[in-house]
């Protein structure tokens, strides 16, 4: 059975959770988050060209990466507060394309060991305001729209089927 990514964002709250299980030990999942050559291969929407300028994944280090499409570049950056090998990463995250600075997100990613060489990733993002959080979720929608409605319809149909059977 394919692994599923679950996003939890309760209305009116300043946080969201992203969880996902992998058929790989957590050491490898951790490495895919801290090795720039691996990170560049999976982060971000598939239709954007991803490049990593810096990924200094250690306590006090910083990162910077860019998504490009056509003439547009979307730059993201932040700092690592704590990088505990194979266990967790705590740090900040900011998109520099907003009209003003200061919409910083604090993130915690934990890598949990599961039996049979599997693992679970749990990410928590905490925002300064509910509007910041909803804005980020909403920016996902704008990209989603350009990716086409068919995919959305198929997904919503699948979702609806699941919640009806749940």
């Amino acid at each position: 059975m394919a692994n599923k990514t679950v996003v939890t964002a309760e209305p009116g709250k300043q946080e969201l959770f992203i969880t996902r299980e992998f058929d790989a030990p957590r050491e490898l999942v951790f490495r895919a988050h801290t090795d720039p050559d691996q990170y560049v291969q999976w982060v971000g929407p598939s239709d954007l060209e991803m490049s990593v300028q810096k990924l200094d994944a250690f306590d006090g280090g910083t990162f910077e990466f860019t998504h490009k499409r056509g003439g547009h570049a979307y730059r993201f950056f932040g700092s690592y507060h704590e990088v505990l090998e194979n266990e967790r990463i705590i740090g900040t995250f900011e998109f520099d394309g907003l009209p003003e600075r200061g919409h910083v997100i604090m993130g915690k990613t934990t890598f949990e060991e599961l039996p049979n060489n599997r693992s679970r990733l749990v990410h928590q993002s905490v925002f300064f305001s509910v509007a910041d959080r909803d804005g980020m979720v909403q920016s996902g929608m704008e990209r989603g729209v350009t990716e086409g409605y068919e995919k959305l319809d198929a997904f919503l149909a699948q979702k609806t089927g699941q919640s009806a059977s749940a």
Partner: protein
Amino acid sequence: MDAFTALAEPTRRNIMEMLATSGCLSATDIYKNFKASAPAISQHLKVLKTANLVRVEKRAQKRIYYVNPEPMKELEKWIQIFTQQMQDSHDRLEALLKRVQSSEFKIPSGDPQH
């Protein structure tokens, strides 16, 4: 004002929670729950109505407020699209992990081809 901006304000979120709990409330019932002045709360109700988050019905001289469930579904839809993007990204991560794992199993065996 869109539903998200409207809900970003704490008093308006309180009003929405009260309405969700009670089903429906008159304007007077809502005013009573706040220290802020009736005109201030009335202004918040106006914003919620403009954002289509609440519906108003007139009964005698009373205005009764209800939650309009439709815009709440919007947030859910956005989360689903966001989830799909995270899913796509994680699927690529999973594919990468598979490649890494298979190449690491080959190295200790000393046989890169088979």
